[in-house]
């Protein structure tokens, strides 16, 4: 290994080192994440629909380029524009290269276009500025913090909408509060986010969560499913719980375990795994051995594609269900070759008559983007309308006045009726937003099987467990 040291002894002789440096150069700051968008159309679709999606993809690229140009313009001229004609700036912070992020952007854009077509708000148009948060698993929160600071410090947006990773959102909060900018969260689920509003209202009154229901409440929903569906209807006595190693999951699992045990169920396994895990066979073998009759899962950033495939291939004699964020994607079933059959995943929006708005909204999203939306699309769309409504009622974009109006929000969305509680948290339960338990059934159809009030289908079992 002399060569390595001596190379540089002679102080980089020219030529010889050039390609080495070149190689170093090719190292981006975050190699895993950026520059994923141009193919978003094709990646989110079934192979057979490629041509169809190709057009959508090209449209996307054009609109993105336009958005990029607009961003650059806004960045440099926002300050110089005339006050009266100045558009209301909506800042979007999300991971633009993954599906939850791109649906957030597209959902918000749909709402902005609709509102602008009707003349805007208080005579002002809405305009969107997007800043990439990067993918948390690879980049950490650095890019997200910079995104918030860019939107607030450089673009001077009137409101921030976005978020998809609780860790990144939590890291952004102090920077958002320092910038005194309203933030409508539409993707992160950690209860610690809204807890800040309770702990220190003055500092954190800017923070609202439009979507989703926080993970503590989701845990309660899961517990209802365990006691009502699994124990009540199916008569199960032993369940296993498996979650990925993230804070919001760690908050949830102990509560679920003790809740299930209090309800008279046995929980022989409650385990976490690293989001990098690629081989789940040990865990399946353990679950099988423990005699559990159902495996509750909580997956968000983990490789749930692989999880489901390995579960199916090993014919694990235990049905699975719970929170699987990637399993909420409309194309998930195709992506795993149909091996998601009978998997249950929570969801917040689905093409079902949840409210009078649901089906029309769903169809208009599909019409605009040629793909089915995920939960952040509804979140982004609703957040724009909720903010616009508050500005209209307040008569200005003055932050404190808008916060007062936001707190009085009463808006019927595609997911249910949206009101905020004291923690600026979206209210849940009957009449409000609900956590739906949705099952992948034959031919990739999705049916709501729980809660009972909104169910539109019956639960099925994995094919290898069906008794003849």
């Amino acid at each position, binding site marked *: 290994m002399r060569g*390595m040291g001596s190379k540089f002894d002679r102080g980089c002789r020219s030529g010889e080192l050039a390609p080495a440096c070149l*190689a170093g150069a*090719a*190292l981006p700051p975050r190699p895993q994440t950026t520059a994923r968008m141009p193919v978003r159309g094709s990646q989110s679709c079934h192979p057979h629909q490629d041509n169809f999606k190709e057009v959508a993809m090209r449209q996307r690229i054009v609109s993105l380029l336009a958005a990029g140009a607009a961003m650059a313009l806004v960045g440099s001229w926002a300050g110089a524009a005339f006050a009266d004609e100045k558009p209301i700036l909506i800042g979007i912070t999300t991971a633009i290269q993954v599906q939850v992020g791109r649906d957030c952007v597209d959902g918000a854009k749909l709402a902005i276009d609709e509102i602008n077509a009707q003349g805007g708000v208080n005579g002002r148009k809405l305009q969107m500025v997007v800043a990439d948060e990067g993918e948390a698993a690879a980049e950490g929160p650095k890019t997200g913090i910079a995104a918030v600071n860019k939107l607030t410090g450089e673009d001077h947006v009137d409101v921030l909408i976005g978020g998809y990773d609780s860790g990144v959102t939590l890291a952004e909060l102090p920077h958002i509060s320092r910038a005194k900018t309203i933030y409508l969260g539409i993707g992160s689920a950690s209860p610690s986010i809204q807890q800040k509003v309770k702990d220190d209202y003055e500092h954190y009154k800017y923070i609202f969560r439009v979507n989703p229901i926080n993970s503590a409440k989701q845990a309660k929903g899961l517990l209802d499913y365990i006691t009502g569906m699994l124990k009540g209807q199916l008569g199960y006595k032993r369940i296993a719980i498996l979650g990925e190693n993230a804070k919001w999951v760690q908050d949830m699992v102990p509560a679920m375990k003790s809740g299930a045990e209090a309800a008279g169920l046995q929980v022989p396994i409650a385990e976490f795994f690293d989001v990098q895990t690629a081989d789940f066979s*040990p865990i399946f073998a353990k679950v099988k051995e423990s005699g559990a009759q159902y495996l509750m899962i909580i997956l968000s950033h983990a490789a749930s594609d*692989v999880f489901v495939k390995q579960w199916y291939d090993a014919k694990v004699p235990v049905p699975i269900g719970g929170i699987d964020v990637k399993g909420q994607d409309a194309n998930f079933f195709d992506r*795993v070759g149909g091996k998601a059959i009978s998997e249950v995943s929570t969801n917040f929006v689905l093409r079902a008559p949840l409210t009078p708005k649901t089906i029309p909204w769903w169809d208009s999203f599909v019409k605009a983007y040629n793909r089915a939306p995920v939960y952040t699309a509804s979140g982004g769309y609703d957040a724009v309308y909720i903010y616009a409504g508050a500005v209209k009622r307040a008569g200005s974009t003055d932050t404190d006045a808008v916060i007062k109006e936001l707190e009085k929000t009463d808006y019927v969305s595609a997911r249910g009726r949206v009101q905020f509680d004291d923690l600026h948290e979206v209210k849940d339960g009957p009449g409000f937003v609900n956590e739906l338990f949705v099952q992948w059934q034959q031919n990739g159809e999705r049916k709501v099987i729980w809660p009972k009030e909104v169910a539109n289908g019956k639960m099925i079992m994995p094919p290898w467990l069906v008794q003849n």
Partner: protein
Amino acid sequence: MAEILVYGAVISAIYAMLAVGFTLIFGVARILNLAHGSFYALGAYGVYALTADAHLPLFLAAAVAVLLVALFGVAVERVLVRPLRRSTLAVLMITLAVALMVEQVLLLIFGSEARNVPSMVNATFDVMGADVSGQRLLALSGAIAILSALWFFMQRTRLGAAILAISQDAEAAQYMGIPSDRIFSLVMGLSAGIAAAAGVLVAPFQTVIPGMGLLPLVKAFAIVVVGGLGSIVGSIVGALLLGYTETIIAFKISIEWSQIVSVAAVLLTLILRPAGFFGKRAAF
């Protein structure tokens, strides 16, 4: 117990396929190839593209994918690595650049979502009471076949002898008239092909995403350090060691702890016995 035995064997076999190529090119050409994981990823994506887009039959697609990746490996050695081979750090950096480029190209073409490669064997088998998918057993037997073929090639053919000669003493081998440059290209192609074959075999039960090459690279690295850089036997022993340790920890303690095994093994080996179990210190 049966599960540990079977699953450990499958994982070890895949690890061995990854590590053998990695250690081979280092032993022969002193190339620390950080693009090794990319060959694995390209193998998986190759079989995906050839089946889903070009509609080739699965097994034909697998063979074509492996061949293409092997050619790509040769090209990387010829064009990018050869001019820099005198500096280990430069090679490290250029292969890292290749790895990143490959990931970005895959990202651009296929997107960030996981891709589905159908199983070559759909049945599930009962092996000593453990349910094992047919694809895993295929991966296991494929790995054994490929590694045996490699062993035969190295021990019984003139070319193999030439490769071994170079890895023992490159200078002397050159004096004996062995064309080292051509051997380097060949070994790079071989190493890329084996990695691609691993990618093809595991694609149906692993995540096919653009960044899928990183973890195998880390594992190959760890195995090769533990076994001794440049030693083929060492890399197979290392693969068994790591594969079974990980599986046992995943079963007996927690799947959470199994991820730390490889890096901790590297650190311990380097501190206690830097040349690895089968490495030759003199080689460095």
